[in-house]
């Protein structure tokens, strides 16, 4: 018998699978799952698979914000590889990058369309096809900024505070997770989200050492997270070890929100 956390033989679909957080998850799934379907912006997934020499990962060019193209793209992938056992949806963090004072109504519309509409469509489409099998695990991505506001004092000029539309869209993902968990629970499909704390990518780490020090000081563990630390929580939720976990937001924030 496989250990409870084994994903051997399973097919997992990862969106944004070549990004900073997604790449760590994709790489580990490449080692431990049966097959990984890695979706990212044109060229990104293929380049990642090639550079890292991944052997069980298939790359797909899918722009998830192209709402009209998403449904046929997913259908084609599922027709070829079957309905995946698990889904990890990273794509993607959206915001207009503006301050509260600058934000236009059209900016808000755009953020929510880019962040929420693909998450909704993807989850519904895959979960509907998981129903007949009676099992599946879907992992969405929230953010600590969907739970608490950024502290503007740690974003030093010319850097701007993490924007309001980003946090609002992530709060919506946390709620959508609960709604989907309830909606699809009777079909044996689990829906959860991972809610990361501060995981700035290496470019941000290099460009803003002051921010990194401030971010670190605001966590109980006194350090930022690195992408390898998002892998365990994600794989845990995908696997049978979490068979009774659904509708949850698993907070991976080094203790940012404990005080």
């Amino acid at each position: 018998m496989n250990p409870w956390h084994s994903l051997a033989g399973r097919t997992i679909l990862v969106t944004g699978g070549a990004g900073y957080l997604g790449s760590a998850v994709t790489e580990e799934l490449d080692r431990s799952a049966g097959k990984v379907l890695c979706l990212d912006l044109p060229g990104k997934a293929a380049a990642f698979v090639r550079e890292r020499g991944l052997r069980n990962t298939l790359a797909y060019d899918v722009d998830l914000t192209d709402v009209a193209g998403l449904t046929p793209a997913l259908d084609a992938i599922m027709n070829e590889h079957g309905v995946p056992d698990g889904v990890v949806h990273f794509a993607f963090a959206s915001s207009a990058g503006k301050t509260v004072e600058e934000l236009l109504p059209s900016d808000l519309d755009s953020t929510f369309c880019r962040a929420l509409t693909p998450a909704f469509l993807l989850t519904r489409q895959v979960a509907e096809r998981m129903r007949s099998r009676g099992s599946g695990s879907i992992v969405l991505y929230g953010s600590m900024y969907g739970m608490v506001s950024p502290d503007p004092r740690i974003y030093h000029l010319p850097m701007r505070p993490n924007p309001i539309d980003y946090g609002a869209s992530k709060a919506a993902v946390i709620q959508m997770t609960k709604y989907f968990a309830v909606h699809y629970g009777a079909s044996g499909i689990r829906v959860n989200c991972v809610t990361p704390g501060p995981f700035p990518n290496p470019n941000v780490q290099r460009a803003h050492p002051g921010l990194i020090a401030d971010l670190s000081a605001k966590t109980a563990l006194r350090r930022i997270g690195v992408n390898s630390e998002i892998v365990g929580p994600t794989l845990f939720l995908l696997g049978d070890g979490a068979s009774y976990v659904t509708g949850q937001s698993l907070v991976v924030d080094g203790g940012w929100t404990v005080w």
Partner: protein
Amino acid sequence: MPDTTPLPLTLQGKVVVQFGGTGLLGPALIDALVAAGATVVIASRSRDSLKEIVAAHAAAGNTVHPEEVDQHSEPSLQALRDRVLAQHGRIDGVVYNSASRPMKSFGDDLAAWRQSMDDNATGFIATIRVFGDAMAKLGSGSIVNISSMYGVVGMNPWLYEGTSMGAPPDYFFHKGGMINVTRYLAAYYGKSNIRVNVVSPGGIYNPAKPQAPAFLEKYEKMTMLGRMAEARELGGPVVFLLSDAGRYVTGANLLVDGGYTAR
């Protein structure tokens, strides 16, 4: 490229002390810790109560280490800590699964409430201080407290109608308190590289002595997966939080309730 070396979801080489080894959940958690490769010390009020589980593991070729402790007594807890360190050289994890249920109903004498405070609140903090401090001195560790979804929501009287089952108030007090004290402890021990998290199970089915049919029928409808938990379904969440796979998770409450609180 950033370092994406995976952090292993295993307890191989780790010494884990579990408080509370009996009841429905205790043995299932011990099974999970053993399966994940941990050296397991089980601390309980009486060694006798652990005979069966120790024998079961021995029959399967595994060694678990039963220990007696009085969680009301700091010297007893300190002595346990010293014995574990002397025998195993280190402590990497603590599973706090002790619970005492002196109160049976809302109207019970306050003496039962006071007893519950002494067992569940005082015993909890006394234990975590001794073992948290010990792990802080060693430079790392992970504590997993076992609360309940009843630390997050109140009881629904409708579930209990027509049964002799009850939901006494002390349980809700201690389980709710445990969740917020977990955040306190995560903040307190964070700088010492000790993670502190809490797992909050929903109702667990008892195959040996099933809950009242009237309760089961209603309860199952309240969960999104349409069933109570199996005790073994708590093993994965606990092992994950103890292991290095959960290395950036601290202060979190992981609800394992089949979606009971999601709606």
